[in-house]
């Protein structure tokens, strides 16, 4: 019965989606299929669309997680649930595989959407960038309903010499509960960049993604931009564990907290290798009755590990507002310009076109608030 229902839900193009779903998906980065190397869409419980653009056939694979597990028996042995265990049931998710040596110039996109009121969407995702592959992934998670919950587990494998730039955009409602869990394994000479943008935060969101730099010369960067309003409560952390020789890590967080929101921003760098280096930067501005608790942690387990951090939290500097007012902006316009500047996407290392797109999403969301 369930399978029959899944079949019925399948679509052959994003333009078949109801307008309100498509519009909400666009707000979290869903682009025209022509501008993407491939597209995945999960609506509520099921993967309803997965397609690789013709130009990139043979370079990558996109499918629902359940289908991938059926197709490739070896996934279970080598990858699936290797970084994050668990034996619970799940409602599909995405499987993205970038083939060895493939250079995927256009971004791949995955959209997770909740339309059923009260749904607990539980998904498992798996992303593999095989040896020497180079790709950018943009995922958007959002909803059009109330009282929903989103539990996403994502495992990343960035194999030797591969580069994976993963950007996740969240847009929730004030009654949504969200629990994303993710882990990345970064091998020799590989780079993993994880960007997280949360523009419309949930009632309750907790996440603490981690990257393990196991390989020599491996590198992991986390960049988080959080815009938190109303009564939202966020607990967002990132962790980089440096096991490989010459491995490097960086965590940058920018948080704007307004209203009565409460934000905990964690960052943890663990230097296990004597030739490892990492830096953590956490900056926050707050207005109204908002609260920010920044918790940077440096754990050096090896004498040669070099770990550093800087953190600064406070209200928007009055002298900056005055400066912009002296250029003709009202106080509100000046505040807004400073917030926009603070949530600067150029820290995310995206290619120019994608950066402009993401910047546009941030601008649009701030404009609608």
């Amino acid at each position, binding site marked *: 019965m369930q399978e029959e229902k899944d079949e019925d839900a399948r679509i052959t193009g994003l333009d078949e989606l109801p307008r309100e779903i498509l519009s909400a998906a666009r707000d979290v980065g869903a682009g025209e299929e022509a501008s993407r190397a491939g597209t995945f869409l999960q609506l509520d419980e099921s993967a309803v669309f997965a397609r690789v653009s013709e130009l990139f056939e043979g370079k990558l694979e996109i499918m629902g997680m359940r289908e991938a597990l059926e197709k490739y028996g070896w996934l279970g042995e080598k990858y699936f649930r290797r970084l994050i265990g668990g034996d619970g049931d799940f409602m599909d998710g995405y499987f993205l595989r970038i083939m060895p040596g493939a250079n995927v110039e256009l971004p791949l996109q995955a959209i997770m959407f909740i339309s059923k009121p009260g749904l607990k969407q539980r998904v498992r995702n798996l992303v593999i960038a095989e040896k020497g592959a180079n790709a950018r992934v943009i995922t958007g998670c959002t909803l059009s309903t109330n009282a929903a919950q989103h539990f996403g587990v994502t495992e990343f494998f960035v194999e030797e010499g591969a580069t994976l730039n993963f950007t996740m955009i969240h847009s929730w409602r004030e009654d949504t509960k969200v629990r994303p869990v993710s882990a990345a394994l970064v091998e020799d000479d590989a780079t993993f960049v994880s960007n997280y943008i949360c523009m419309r935060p949930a009632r309750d969101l907790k996440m603490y993604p981690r990257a393990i730099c196991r390989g020599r010369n491996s590198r992991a960067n986390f960049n988080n931009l959080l815009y938190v309003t109303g009564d939202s409560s966020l607990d967002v952390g990132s962790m980089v564990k440096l096991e490989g020789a010459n491995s490097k890590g960086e965590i940058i967080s920018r948080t704007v907290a307004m209203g009565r929101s409460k934000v905990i921003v964690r960052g943890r760098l663990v230097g296990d290798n004597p030739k490892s280096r990492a830096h953590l930067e956490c900056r926050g501005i707050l207005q109204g009755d908002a609260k920010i608790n920044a918790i940077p942690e440096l754990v050096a387990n090896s004498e040669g590990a070099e770990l550093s951090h800087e953190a600064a939290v406070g209200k928007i500097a009055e002298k900056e507002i005055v400066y912009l007012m*002296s250029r*003709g*902006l009202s106080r509100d316009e000046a505040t807004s310009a400073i917030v926009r500047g603070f949530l600067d996407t150029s820290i995310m290392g995206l290619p120019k076109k994608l950066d402009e797109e993401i910047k546009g999403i941030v601008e649009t969301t701030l404009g609608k608030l």
Partner: protein
Amino acid sequence: MGPLLQIRNLSVEVAGERLLEDINFDVERGQTNVIFGPNGSGKTSLINAIMGIPGYEVVGGTIIFDGKDITSLSLDEKVRLGIGVAFQNPPEIRGLKLRDMLKMCARKGLKEDLSEEELELAKRFNLTSMLDRDVNFNFSGGEKKRSEILQVLLMKPKLLILDEPDSGVDFESIVLIGSEIQSYLSRTGSSAIIVTHQGHILEHVEAHRGAVLMRGTIYCYGKPLEVLDSIKRKGYGGCEVCKRRRTRMQE
């Protein structure tokens, strides 16, 4: 038409402390006034009070601009009436690109591009390579001054207020800043108030009137180069005993 700016009996306090006392000061249309004064004499406070920077409370007197009483207007309202100010120590704003700041100054939307003419002006100020940098972040002293003047010129103000445009900058920057300011003033017939400590800018900008501000009040008015010459010879200590003290700007 009367003067572009008329300040009458202006007294100003910050957090209850009197910083300016009974200031009288006019700027005629198309003319440039210079304010001299030692460190801590109240020059920047006077600019902040004219502009309506929050915290500077006018406790007496009036400020009339272009025939309108602007004493209690907010900073942005004054700017929109046509007063442009270049700060001595502008703050850095992370994430805000100089290019976008210039668009704001030119009253453009962020999606519009700067015009050829505006880009050409930025080029003359040697700031083309700074356009996509965060405003004032890691700018040298000279770059900050050039950026300030460029921003103000793009606002096309009727009155320019420049706080020490010539301090901490190299010789070439002073020549550049001075000649661009003078070119703008000559072309548009706008007026200016220039605060200067050492007077270098006066080699490139034609100034009509000067005043010495000390201990929060104006000690004298006179021809700018004469006042500057006197300060150079006798120092500000000479102003204390000068017979010109408290002479009104009548000549």
